């Protein structure tokens, strides 16, 4: 799984890059992404070929006439694109969003799962 920052910078519409953790174990890869303020309805996960796009829009309940005096989050959109490697199975991705953290589980294709090979003595 590689981070495709380059293709992201080429896009004309600016977005925040959400911080992620990527952990690989025997059966697959787990990705955690911080998407604070993004409700389930505003989260878009797109798998296209071997690339996974995470895109979320902030939904703040802003009172009328709010004047922003200090902003560390300057854009209302999070976006990040990852490229999957061959042994990962894009058809079996599962996703969960809880308290603003997205958890993506991408299992490895069956042929790529580790196997112990039995040695037969002749």
């Amino acid at each position, binding site marked *: 799984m590689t981070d495709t920052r380059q293709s992201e*910078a080429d896009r004309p519409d600016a977005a925040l890059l959400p911080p992620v*953790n990527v*952990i*690989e*174990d025997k059966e697959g890869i787990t990705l955690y992404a*911080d998407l604070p303020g993004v409700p389930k309805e505003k989260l878009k996960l797109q798998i296209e070929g071997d690339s996974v796009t995470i895109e979320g829009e902030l939904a703040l309940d802003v009172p009328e006439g709010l004047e922003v005096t*200090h902003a560390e989050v300057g854009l209302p959109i999070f976006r990040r694109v990852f490229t999957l490697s061959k042994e990962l199975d894009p058809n079996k991705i599962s996703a969960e969003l809880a308290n603003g953290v997205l958890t993506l589980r991408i299992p490895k294709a069956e042929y790529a799962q580790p196997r112990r090979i039995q040695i037969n003595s002749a």
Partner: protein
Amino acid sequence: MYRTLFPRDVFAELDRLQRELTQAFDLSPNIRGLARGSFPAINVGSTAKSVDIYAFAPGLEPGSIDVQLEKGVLTIAGERKPTAPSGDEKATVHIDERFAGRFRRVVSLPDDVDPNAVTANYRDGLLHVSARRNEASQPRRISIQ
């Protein structure tokens, strides 16, 4: 002889270059993402009736966030646990960018905030603290007699 090698005003050129660089970085916040080292990121806004603080603090239990207001200073504190290990000894961490550990952020509120009328709610990893301003300090139109 040497003069011709340089633009007419080197310092003006350097200045321009620096300005352009600053501008270029400001226009592309996607590379920097959220400022690291300051968790949670905070946006503050105000209206005539209230002061609103938005803390972007994903992945917390609402009960574990400590929000305190003392002498006009609002403190948001808590702890974010590191991602639970999957129990697999051979698990490899490829990217580790998310904040883990204890955090504390402090915002000083304006004097006209009513300390008894502060509400906080946590949804989708976003903490919204709203502090109402005193009735007396809200803008009023004074009629001319």
